């Protein structure tokens, strides 16, 4: 009997606690960005604290983020006011589910970003919010092994390979680090760096003879790469632990290394190949779902996020750079200075060859990435012949392009209709 009375006591106690949940009127900001705890904290404390009425900032992984917003759209009512995510997250959604934002009068300074944000319609479906890119970073100890005559700010892929080979010879360890882990962003290296640098294209040139050369060069680089790279997803960890001396990764995934030991590392532009210095800008945006309960508050928050002061605060918090015209202050954290410098050098390089984010793929963006990941795994990890693998993967790629009807994006030459795989 005592047990039952204890249980019933516990149940009623819980019921009272449940009923005591307070109602809040904060604007719910549902984001896939600024997810790491420190960034989330900085977003809440420094970026969003200045917004009148308060913001409930909730960073999520892509899966729960998309599932929740889909559920709210399907139910026809919801609590999410503002969504923050990468271009790829939004392009996987139906533009009809996003509020047209053209009447806000907000846009970025980049026309490319503004047209990406229309998601194939004639209205802004999201507002470009912040940008980043992928760069190279190295431990200063590795600099002494740079091949003769090489300028770290204008490296070529051949020089990078020679450099990593020198390091291996001198230390006996493979010290190039590549984010090939499960959460690593390796596919972006192939789409935005290797392919544009060697083939001046991504889709059209996927299985071209130049692409074969590109993969041969990459396997050469891989032979000097720390074999544990298949577990690396955030190269700042390996830079700090010394497992890798020369690395490639997203600027915000290198930030911690520069902030913790600014004097030990250098950031520098990605290397160049025969067809230029390929690099890929990363774009995040802000959107409002059609189910947002308080449209005015949501629009006010989007407007607040685009103010120059907020953009600078966001830069400090997340290492993502402003997309509007701002005067950058001098007292930025070391990671921002290092990365900003490298990105500026990379985009201003005479041989710069920017590769844009895949566009127009809708919800097949993941499949598109998978083609490159599979190609990497088969050629590099499984050692299959390059020609055969490219011929094989080409079919999958062509099918994705035909089914989505996505036209070519830079650096591929423009196409009428779906981008052809030549």
């Amino acid at each position: 009997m005592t047990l039952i009375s204890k249980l019933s006591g516990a149940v009623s106690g819980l019921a009272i606690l449940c009923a005591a949940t307070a109602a809040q009127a904060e604007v719910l900001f549902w984001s896939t960005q600024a997810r790491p705890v420190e960034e989330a904290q900085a977003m809440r404390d420094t970026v969003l604290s200045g917004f009148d009425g308060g913001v409930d900032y909730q960073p999520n992984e892509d899966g729960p983020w998309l599932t929740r917003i889909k559920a709210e759209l399907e139910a026809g009512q919801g609590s999410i006011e503002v969504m923050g995510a990468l271009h790829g997250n939004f392009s996987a959604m139906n533009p009809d589910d996003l509020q047209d934002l053209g009447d806000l009068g907000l846009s970025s300074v980049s026309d490319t970003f503004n047209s990406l944000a229309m998601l194939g319609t004639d209205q802004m479906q999201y507002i470009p919010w912040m940008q980043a890119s992928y760069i190279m970073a190295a431990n200063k100890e590795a600099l002494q092994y740079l091949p003769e005559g090489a300028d770290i700010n204008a490296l070529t892929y051949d020089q990078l390979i020679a450099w990593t080979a020198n390091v291996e010879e001198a230390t006996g360890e493979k010290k190039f680090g590549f984010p090939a882990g499960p959460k690593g962003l390796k596919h972006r290296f192939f789409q935005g760096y290797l392919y544009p640098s060697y083939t001046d294209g991504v889709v059209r040139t996927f299985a071209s003879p130049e692409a074969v050369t590109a993969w041969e060069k990459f396997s050469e680089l891989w032979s000097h790469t720390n074999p544990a790279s298949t577990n690396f997803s955030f190269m700042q960890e390996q830079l700090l632990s010394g497992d890798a001396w020369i690395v490639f990764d997203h600027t915000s995934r290198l930030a911690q290394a520069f902030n913790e030991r600014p004097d030990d590392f250098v950031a520098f532009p990605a290397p160049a190949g025969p067809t230029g210095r390929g690099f890929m800008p990363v774009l995040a945006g802000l959107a409002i779902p059609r189910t947002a309960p308080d449209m005015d508050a949501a629009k006010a928050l989007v407007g607040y996020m685009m103010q120059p002061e907020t953009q600078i605060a966001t830069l400090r918090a997340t290492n993502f750079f402003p997309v509007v015209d701002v005067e950058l202050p001098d007292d930025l954290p070391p990671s921002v200075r290092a990365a900003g410098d490298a990105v500026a050098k990379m985009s201003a390089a005479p041989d710069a060859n920017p590769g844009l984010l895949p566009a127009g793929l809708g919800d097949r963006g993941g499949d598109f990435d998978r083609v490159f990941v599979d190609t990497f795994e088969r050629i590099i990890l499984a050692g299959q012949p390059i020609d055969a693998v490219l011929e094989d993967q080409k079919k999958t790629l062509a099918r994705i392009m035909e089914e989505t009807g996505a036209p070519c994006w830079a650096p591929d030459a423009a196409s009428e209709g779906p981008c052809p795989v030549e």
Partner: protein
Amino acid sequence: MTAVTTDANPQDARKAGRIVYLAAVVLLCAWVLVPLYFLLINTLSSPEAVNSFPKSFFPAFDLGSLTFFANFGGMLSALKNSIIVAALTMVLSILIGAPAGYALSRFDFRGKELFRLLILLTRAFPLPLLALPLAVLFIRTGLDDTALGLALVHTTLAIPFAVLITFSLFSGIPIELEEAAWTLGCTRLTAFTKVVLPLILPGITASAIFAFVISWNEVFAAAVLTIENRTLTAFLLQTLGEAPLHLKFAGGFILVVPALIFIFAVRKYLFAMWGIANR
């Protein structure tokens, strides 16, 4: 022929057996304790120490990582939500699971075997698949973003364990005990509460622990179905995946400790179960 094999001194054999036994105990303890110990050390180390190698065996008592979480907004309310949801899950899964286990062990009915199989099916579908329709339903019915709604989902996940554990325990208690109680003046209900219930209390505890741990560890449903009333796991785990290493350790430590405290608190009921099994 046999003389060769009888050489072994029985005392030596017993000693060797003891050593093997002790080694096995030490190995099993180390299996559990060493990772927890490293978690503790790294939680109490400075970021530089966490990234360096070799690791020190003694914590440096650098509270930087833990202080960060102490100031991390919303931790306490997330912890409260986690406890509420886990407790509700525990109560619900036992209230539903134990009678089902009793019925399965005491009564014969058509489709009994099928029912036992079906009950496992609640675990056959991955949550990411179920979360979308569930969330739509919850939003429409108003269960969305409540502890009760999430506890219902977690209860579904925990029920197979509750049913199967209590079923095997009820089956281990002879029906004669109950029959004797009936002849001595008990009703069906009092025979159950006075005779059977005390005997299966350890089993109930075991299923309660399972329910608690399942609810405590579940991320996906919690992340989709709660927004303002987030559980600690949904709140922390999603942001930890990409956090720096020292915060990963500290966050992991914070997630592990409440579960450990809970299991410690109920351990005496759990250990009594092995007492029953040995009788």
